[in-house]
């Protein structure tokens, strides 16, 4: 009873909080420096990727260790369309990225979702590394380990090539990416609260029971796989013009590990958890990297700490604290 009360309170608090944070992020370039806005821009790209990733990880219970593959598909789509084909229209890039990654994920997913747990993780890892070697070895197409340049895209058909780089990234491009993030977050919220999303949770908690109840487990896992891949492709496509460069390192297995890290750090059991993880990861990385070149050690230590002591991540810690307070007062 008390517990239920606590949850309702949280929910009542939730929507205004999301709106406030959203407005703060939207207005950020007006009062913060360009560099912070740029960092947040990269966060938007990662945020889209991890909320997609978490549909698979948190909601369906499948740990992919090769999800960076689809992010890379999006990033290389941006590179190919802007540099090789001279079609620098951001909307086109996004559409092509989603189509390519959806097709690829439909194929890879059909193979991967036959397995769960460690075998699923290994199979996705293998596909990610397969793509990595493909990008690396077919250098006449992909530029090999030097990667490819990503030129500045047109937004809504408007050419911004006269605008200084940081002004573009912390300005028009920032708002553009924000709007996409907002839309996709809303869509994902609708997905996870729909009957489809509930089925995914049922599959995660008890696949046999879900199957008995008439949920086609494999098909639903496959849907989740494809949707999460499409999200990752959008994230990658938005990230590429911000960085200005893509290279095969984007799809290395440690990069997929970073996506898992973000989700875990923020708390994969909460809808906004992975995003919180993403924002903390990016801000902390920037801070720690400026202090020491051994930032990986610190991040490794954080990861081990979260795994051992706070597996619910930041969101898990916060919500257990608020619940306790609700119970106490």
């Amino acid at each position: 009873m008390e517990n239920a009360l606590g949850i309702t309170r949280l929910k009542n608090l939730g929507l205004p909080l999301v709106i406030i944070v959203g407005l703060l992020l939207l207005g950020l370039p007006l009062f913060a420096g360009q560099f912070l806005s740029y960092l947040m821009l990269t966060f938007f790209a990662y945020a889209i990727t991890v909320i997609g990733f978490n549909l698979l990880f948190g909601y369906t219970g499948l740990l992919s260790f090769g999800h960076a593959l689809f992010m890379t598909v999006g990033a290389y789509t941006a590179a190919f369309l802007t540099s090789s084909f001279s079609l620098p229209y951001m909307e086109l890039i996004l559409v092509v990225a989603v189509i390519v990654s959806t097709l690829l994920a439909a194929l890879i997913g059909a193979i991967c979702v036959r397995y769960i747990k460690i075998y699923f993780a290994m199979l996705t890892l293998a596909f990610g590394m397969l793509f990595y070697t493909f990008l690396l070895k077919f250098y006449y197409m992909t530029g090999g380990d030097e990667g490819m340049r990503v030129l500045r895209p047109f937004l809504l058909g408007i050419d911004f090539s006269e605008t200084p780089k940081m002004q573009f990234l912390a300005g028009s491009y920032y708002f553009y990416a924000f709007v996409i993030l907002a839309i996709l977050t809303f869509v994902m919220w609708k997905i996870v609260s729909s009957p489809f999303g509930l089925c995914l949770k049922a599959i995660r908690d008890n696949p046999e029971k879900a199957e008995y109840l008439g949920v086609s487990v494999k098909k639903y896992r496959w849907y989740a796989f494809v949707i999460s891949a499409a999200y990752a492709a959008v994230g990658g496509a938005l990230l590429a013009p911000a960085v200005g460069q893509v290279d095969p390192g984007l799809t290395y297995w440690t990069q997929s590990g970073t996506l898992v890290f973000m989700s875990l750090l923020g708390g994969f059991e909460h809808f906004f958890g992975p995003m919180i993880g993403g924002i903390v990861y990016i801000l902390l990385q920037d801070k720690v990297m400026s202090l020491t070149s051994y930032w990986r050690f610190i991040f490794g230590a954080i990861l081990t700490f979260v795994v051992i002591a706070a597996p619910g991540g930041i969101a898990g810690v916060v919500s257990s604290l608020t619940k306790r307070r609700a119970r106490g007062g």
Partner: protein
Amino acid sequence: METILNVLFSGVFHASTLFLVAAGLQVVFGVQKVFNLACGTFYALGAYFGITVVKLLVDHGFPKPLFIAPLIAAGLLLGLIVGPVIERGLMKFVYDRDETFQLLLTFGIVMMLEDVIKFIWGTSPQSMGGIDLMYGQLNVLGATVPVYNLIVILCSLIIAGLIGYLLLNTKFGRIIRATADNREMSEALGINMKVVYIKVFTLGTVLGTLGGALVIPAGAAVSEMGVELIVLAFAVVVIGGLGSMKGAFIGALVVGVLKSIAISTYPELEMLTVYIIVIAVLVIKPEGLFGGSRV
């Protein structure tokens, strides 16, 4: 003919160190059910530490031709220290958790150890300056093979034999196999899991550090070698079958030889073929070639 033999020998040489790391991965997975991503980093640690020890000794007048003895000792010692520290300090907290968390913990260990290596040895490549060449080369049916490579292959075979003996003919081996088969039952029979886990994890670590120490005279230590090797070792255990020692042996040969064939014929396909085989195995026979047979 010579080229085929050369390719084959270099493949088997790769396979021999790959087998050690993969065997470490297998024994830990078999008993503790943890897929230890840090195995590759143990290999890198062993390589760097081996270089430091041998260099130090040679500088202090240690007879050069005998360098292989302290090298093996260095690999063993490092594993015997690092293994228990990591097992007691970190791994023991997650045995009851979901395997996702176990996998991520080892990923965190990889991140930390990578920077420890960078901190101690820096980012520039390290090598022993071709110390392996002092054993000369051997002509085998027209193919020239460095003697040191043959020594490594031999060492690896001896270690494989020792592991086989340990698992099949000793009390500890029986305990390992029993635990891999049914942990609750072994515990109920009075086996001290804590001790078994420390020993097994240390064994896995030693195999990694020893592999790194043995291979490094013939190459150079670079900071990415750990994360690169773990992917190969991963391919080995998938092809051979998770948890199977025989699988690690065959898998290492498949990956090692395949890699060196691809490098000499069509380098673009080098790792591509390995991953395609991995995926094919996972799709057709996910338990691997020797899956099902325990440890």
